[in-house]
């Protein structure tokens, strides 16, 4: 199977340090730069990568991705089975699973955690994958009146979650979903201790309360998790110190301290790395040339692929962007190599297809969107669109330095290669989101998607007509696409699934639903004495974060 082979080649792997000797315990300190502090230490409330960089170390879901991302493997659960109709998932919990305070993890903790997460009053940001036809009863989420405790309670008790015995956690689904194993491996699907939540809140509270159920997450002493690490100290906006959870079922990690710093400024982090105050950092684009020119640093730098693709979106509600030739002309008028090699200093890689390198479904055989200014111009002529018509359109740009730089380059490419004189519209990022939601834009980008989990279902759904105005901002009408994707989503034969998704990707590329631009990579500096295993699924800027429980510092 080609997809699996690519995955095995592309990702996963340990660093091959010449000296594999583990340093003494007092040297087992890993200092990484997570750039931004989590908005919450309650994992069910986390939505960003920089948040679960901490959350995933402290709380462990039932399953976790394998290092090569080919499948999931047991984590919080010892094993799991799926009923023949694909509707009932039975998770056998580990008998030796313990919380960081020493108590045993029971099935009721899992039920409580899932219900805490799915309580509509708490409005967790990442619930969508759970109530979209997966957990039974969760599709009633939207109808719940969050001011009514009885409605919330009956919704929560009606969910397909049960604990027949302390070691068994059962989830019932609405209808079969081959990807559900990935959904339960998300950082939000974790157990939570009811007694601690209520103790921190000062007693029990109605399910409509939105303040009390979050009190525990503000204090390291009440952030009790089932993951390999526990939080020992939070210095707000500065760093969080994690120490081993000595009760972790797989044994305490080697690292005696894992310190996540929140240094937003890349230059400061870079400077701190050079003085030896940090062990893992992301190199800001501007400093890449400095790293490459330095004999020592260039050896410590690594380029990691991320499961993230970026593209330019055209508003198909607006003529002439409803014309596929016009969209294709723009897609073909962008020199991606110059963008990634020169403007981005080789920290990202060009891509003319949808699924990124590193996960199942990556395929580069379709070259329809390749850079070809002459063909692009010909397409515009064929569409009968003049420069004057196009010049009134603007490229909507988020007010962040990265977006501004990239879009200044891209608009310059279009203007040069298509003979246009279009302008940027740079505005506040939240307003950009509001505008694209309302369809108030001409061209928007760079717009992108990062894998929630490495299954194609997570990707192809975003261009369905149901996602128009919610993720499919351009709303290009693709006859047959919805049915094809739906078929692939529920298909149980993996080979057939892959073939269907491949056809769907070809539709996206050939119709220039968007102009694919580049896959995000990460240019990181990692101190040579850090022994770690990375996957393309690690938290952004923190390579190895998925498996820090096995990381260690070698003698140096």
């Amino acid at each position, binding site marked *: 199977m080609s997809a699996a082979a690519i995955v095995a080649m592309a990702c996963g792997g340990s660093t091959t340090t010449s000296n594999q000797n583990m340093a003494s315990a007092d040297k087992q300190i890993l200092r990484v730069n997570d750039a931004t502090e989590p908005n919450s230490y309650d994992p069910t409330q986390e939505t960003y990568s920089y948040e679960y960089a901490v959350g995933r170390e402290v709380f462990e879901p039932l399953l976790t991705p394998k290092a090569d991302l080919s499948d999931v493997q047991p984590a919080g659960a010892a094993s799991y089975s799926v009923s023949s109709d694909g509707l009932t998932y039975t998770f056998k919990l580990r008998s030796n699973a313990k919380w960081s305070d020493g108590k045993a993890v029971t099935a009721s903790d899992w039920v409580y955690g899932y219900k805490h997460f799915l309580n509509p009053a708490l*409005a967790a940001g990442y619930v969508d994958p759970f109530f979209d036809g997966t957990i039974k009863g969760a599709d009633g989420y939207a109808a719940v009146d969050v001011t009514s405790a009885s409605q919330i309670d009956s919704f929560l008790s009606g969910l397909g979650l049960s604990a027949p015995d302390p070691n068994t956690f059962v989830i019932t689904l609405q209808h079969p979903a081959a990807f559900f194993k990935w959904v339960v491996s998300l950082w939000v699907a974790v157990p939570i201790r009811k007694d601690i939540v209520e103790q921190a809140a000062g007693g029990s509270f109605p399910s409509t309360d939105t303040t009390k159920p979050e009190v525990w997450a503000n204090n390291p002493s009440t952030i009790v998790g089932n993951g390999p690490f526990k939080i020992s100290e939070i210095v707000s906006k*500065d760093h969080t110190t994690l120490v081993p959870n000595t009760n972790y079922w797989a044994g305490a990690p080697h690292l005696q301290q894992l310190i996540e710093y*929140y240094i937003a400024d890349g230059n400061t982090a870079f400077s701190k790395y050079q003085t030896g105050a940090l062990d893992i950092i992301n190199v800001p684009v501007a400093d890449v040339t400095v790293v490459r020119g330095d004999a020592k640093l260039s050896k410590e730098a690594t380029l990691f692929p991320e499961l993230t693709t970026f593209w330019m979106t055209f508003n198909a509600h607006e003529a002439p962007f409803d014309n596929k030739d016009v969209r294709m002309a723009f897609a073909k008028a962008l020199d991606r190599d110059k963008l990634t090699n020169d403007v981005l200093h080789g920290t990202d890689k060009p891509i003319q297809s949808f699924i990124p390198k590193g996960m199942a479904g990556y395929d580069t055989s379709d070259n329809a969107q390749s850079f070809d200014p002459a063909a692009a111009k010909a397409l515009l002529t064929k569409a009968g669109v003049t420069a004057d018509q196009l010049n009134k359109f603007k490229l909507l740009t988020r007010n962040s330095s990265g977006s501004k730089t990239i879009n200044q380059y891209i608009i310059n490419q279009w203007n040069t290669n298509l003979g246009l004189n279009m302008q940027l519209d740079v505005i506040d990022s939240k307003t950009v989101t509001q505008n694209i939601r309302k369809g108030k834009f001409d061209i928007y980008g760079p717009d992108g998607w990062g894998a929630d989990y490495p299954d194609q279902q997570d990707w192809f759904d975003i261009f369905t007509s149901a996602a128009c105005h919610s993720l499919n901002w351009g709303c290009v009408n693709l006859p047959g696409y919805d049915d094809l994707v739906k078929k692939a989503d529920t298909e149980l034969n993996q080979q057939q699934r892959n073939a269907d998704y491949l056809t769907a990707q070809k539709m996206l590329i050939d119709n220039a639903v968007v102009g694919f631009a580049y896959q995000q990579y990460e240019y990181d500096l990692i101190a040579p004495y850090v022994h770690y295993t990375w996957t393309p699924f690690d938290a952004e800027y923190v390579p190895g974060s998925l498996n820090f429980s096995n990381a260690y510092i070698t003698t140096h």
Partner: protein
Amino acid sequence: MAVISGRPARGALLPSRLVSLGNSRTGSLVVFIIRRILWLIPILFFVITITFVLMHLAPGSPWDKNGGRQLSQTVVNNLNARYGLNKPVYQQYGLYLWNVAHFDFGLSYQYQGKTVSALLLEGWKYTATLGTLAFLLIVPVGVSLGVLAALRQNTRIDYITMGFSTFAASFPNFVVGMLMVVAFSVLLYKWTQGSFFLPSADFALDDHLVLPVITLALFPIAYTARLTRASTLETIRQDYIRTAWAKGLPERLVVIKHVLKNSLIPVVTTLGPLFAFLVTGSVIVEQIFNIPGIGRAFVTAVASYDYPMILGTSILFAIVIAIANLVVDVLYVFIDPRVRLT
């Protein structure tokens, strides 16, 4: 509030709002302080109202993400309910005023489950440390430079001091800050070891503070020096100083006893505006040096539409400035016996 449009340097020491009235000095001082504290209420009301109106004019929602997966409408509705944003704006406004009157500044939108008060408290230690250190630097350094320049008027010391002050008073602090970063952590990297001077993480009362404090204090030092020089020049021309000099008192004694005391008066009047300057300056300096203080939190809050945090920060800054002005005005009464209170 602060009177910075007056020209204390050339006499005219009486700020317009210190109108003379009462006769019992202590009693009127108490009345004065109470009145000034009550005066805070309309100020805060105004700050809250303006900020509130502006924020609700913005089209974006605090729940919009900067790309990638967006929250579904259901979750957005629930979040609006959770934070009371589903109520009519006038109700939200009334509720906010009511809560503020009870010292409740609400929950941050960005940092779920954290109160604005807790967040402000976290940032306050950085901003206050920075501001206090700068303040402690400004008065002694500024006044000494000014007195020195005045006593050595038209000498090389005078020219150098005033040349420095002129430059420092005109160069914006963010330019100065950045040039220092370039100088110390890039060009002189080998010598300074770069991050030594750049704070951000492990922020502590050590060398990390050197550049930010200098950046913040440079303009006020320069200004204070210019002001002190002018007032000292005026003082030493007074008859009684000439007499003291003529009597042959040692120069240092004359300086300390008379000159300093008199030339400090105009400096005191500027301490209020100085505080306001330090507050705004902290926004810039924290941005340049990545200090997790309140100024930086404010910029983040504006970008993420964290309404309660924006409001809370504006209120805190307004209070700090108002209290600083009050303290200065009271100090002023003690220093300058000519001033009487309403």
